């Protein structure tokens, strides 16, 4: 869960869609002691490339090192910090919540308010599907807690830059692979 008081950065990386890439990335993070609060991976629009979204906890130095160390991996094609972009952030969650004939209408009302969906109904449980930013999902979870949440499955954050520019392109965000930007003072 994202602690809003801490400093977080959303970093996206285009990576080769090859076996072991996730292991390389995870190994690098753990070896260098970086803290990722979530990570999601999926195919990108380019065949052979996947896109990873990371939420990284830490100050500017940490984020810069994360980006540079990521880019050092041969299978990582591009790294961008899109934290300062205008971005759409989404996460999907599946929530299995206990329900009885008495509580079911109340749960359905809450689900409606959150524009979430009920995707499975059993005699004593419901599965709720919700998308949104982390705050919205956390809020829904709070409201469902009294009914007893039996299982939670969250995908982690995916993010995309608004407008026509490609996410993490040179036009948007900080392209962390342009190492020779002049006039930058690098501070550890």
């Amino acid at each position: 869960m994202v602690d809003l008081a801490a400093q977080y950065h959303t970093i996206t990386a285009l990576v080769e869609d090859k076996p072991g890439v996730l292991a390389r990335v995870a190994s690098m993070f753990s070896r260098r002691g970086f803290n990722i609060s979530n990570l999601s991976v999926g195919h990108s629009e380019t065949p052979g490339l996947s896109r990873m979204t990371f939420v990284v906890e830490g100050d500017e130095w940490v984020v810069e090192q994360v980006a540079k160390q990521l880019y050092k991996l041969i299978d990582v094609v591009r790294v961008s910090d899109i934290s300062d972009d205008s971005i759409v952030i989404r996460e999907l969650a599946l929530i299995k919540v206990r329900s009885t004939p008495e509580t079911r209408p109340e749960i359905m009302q809450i689900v409606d308010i959150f524009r979430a969906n009920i995707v499975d109904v059993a005699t004593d449980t419901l599965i709720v599907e919700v998308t949104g930013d982390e705050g919205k999902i956390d809020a829904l979870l709070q409201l469902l807690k009294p009914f007893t949440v039996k299982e939670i499955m969250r995908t982690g954050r995916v993010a995309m830059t608004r407008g026509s520019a490609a996410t993490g392109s040179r036009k948007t965000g900080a392209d962390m692979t342009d190492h020779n930007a002049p006039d930058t003072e690098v501070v550890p």
Partner: protein
Amino acid sequence: MQLTGAQIVCECLLREGVQVMFGLPGGAIMPFYQTLPEYPDLKHILVRHEQNAGHAADGYARASGRVGVCVATSGPGATNLVTPLANAMMDSVPVIALTGQVPRAAIGRDAFQETDTTGITMPITKHNYLAMHAADLPRIFREAFHIASTGRPGPVLIDLPRDVLEETAEFEYPDQVSLRGYKPTLEGHNRSIKRAAKLIDDAQRPVILAGHGVLISGASAELRELAEKAQVPVITTLLGIGGFSGDHVLSMGMPGMHGQAHNNWAIDRADVVLGVGMRFDDRVTGKISAFAPEAKVIHIDIDPAEVGKNVRVSVPIVGDARRVLHALIKEVQTATHPDWLREIDELRERHPGMPTSSPDRLLPQQVVRDIHAATGGNAIVVTGVGQHQMWAAQGYSFTQPNTWITSGGLGTMGFEVPAAMGAAVARPDAVVWSIAGDGGFQMTMSELATIVEQRLPIKFAILNNNALGMVRQLQDLFLGGDNVATLYTGNPDFVKLAEAYGIWATRVSDPAQVQDAIRDAMAVDGPTLIDFDVARDENVYPHLPAGGTTSQMLEGPGLSGDQAGKDVPAWLT
């Protein structure tokens, strides 16, 4: 052309210009070995332990500037390569490791001699591959050699399942490498170079810190031209030694924990520090917040992740050291810094090193000094890690690039034996001295057999203090002299040991006999070993405690720089 995987591997090695490799066979890699007789141009040197194959490839690469190749089988063969791969990774050395692997169908089933080699070596290689089809081998080898030898060099491992080596595939070697995620930046940014030049022009007290990148990029001539044009003194890091001639008037020596004391004082005073192909390692900086407190830092490095990692950098320049220096030379003004150079001379006088000889004790420093004299400073010197390494780094003035071969970042004891073997194979024209510690020597001395087999005329000098001397020194200086697990009581007779291998050997205990023994060894046409029975309690000075500041540096027994002439601190007596 249809070839077996093993034949394809050999074809690829030939196309990459490989002439020699160091290895030791086993079950999974056997199809490759059994194919070698078809390729007489690929010389294989059979070692006694895979770790030494890796270090030999490392020493070969450093001495020749080419890619070193080592071979091992699956399982224990591959795990024995872990130390040399980590060593090559830390010191940016281009090494290709070929490892056997169990047949594809057996992978993941805990088969005999199976280990997750690519998993284990992921953090200690620049990149690695598990080849799953013989048809992929040409592309993999083309990429592997490209990755290992370009940008910031490093080791690349290729894991070869036995049945991949046996299956046949069409062989065609690719002309080009296509790696979307790997495009090293070579040219520095123009504006950054101009800003750097301005800082250097405005500096009153500039210093250059030159590292391994100068040697890797072949930038010695450019470094010298820049230093002379702007009259900037040059300090070489442990791995940068040889990148700037030790007998040049602007040469300062080594910085940091065991560097010459005047360098640390000079860095404290500097107003501009130009780091070239180095990484501001903790052994160089000591306490980061107190490092070069008055200086603006210009940092040239080909690895962007090094820039800004450890110290605050005013002008970062990512690029190849030689190209960036070439551009920088044109931008900087001709200058002189007479006051600054005079101040440095004064620092040198105020902070002299320790005596290098004594009439009644055989000092290890004397051995280094006498080897230097006997070789005219022209030998390739290979060391392990510890006191002997620091005495060699301080005392042997190197004038040529790639003649000083040592384990820096990882600090691998035992490197001195196999790396000397690799250097001697790479440079049959050169005189190779392996200055060894008695501890490290015993870790890898099994290669004496290989050295004899290969008729490599390596001159071993064991600075034998019957101790793990550097750890013993730490115990004596900082931990109350409690010598836990550092003193050997049963070292072998190294002379008899060498003789068992058929190697000429002698022992020296008398300071007056050192030069004669060195001369005798050099007269022998073949490997030799001299066991120097050096003073056990001799310490390496200066000693700047880990994470310490210059003023905490011990410049001699009981003396820290700012305490010279004052009372010796109680904890040191």
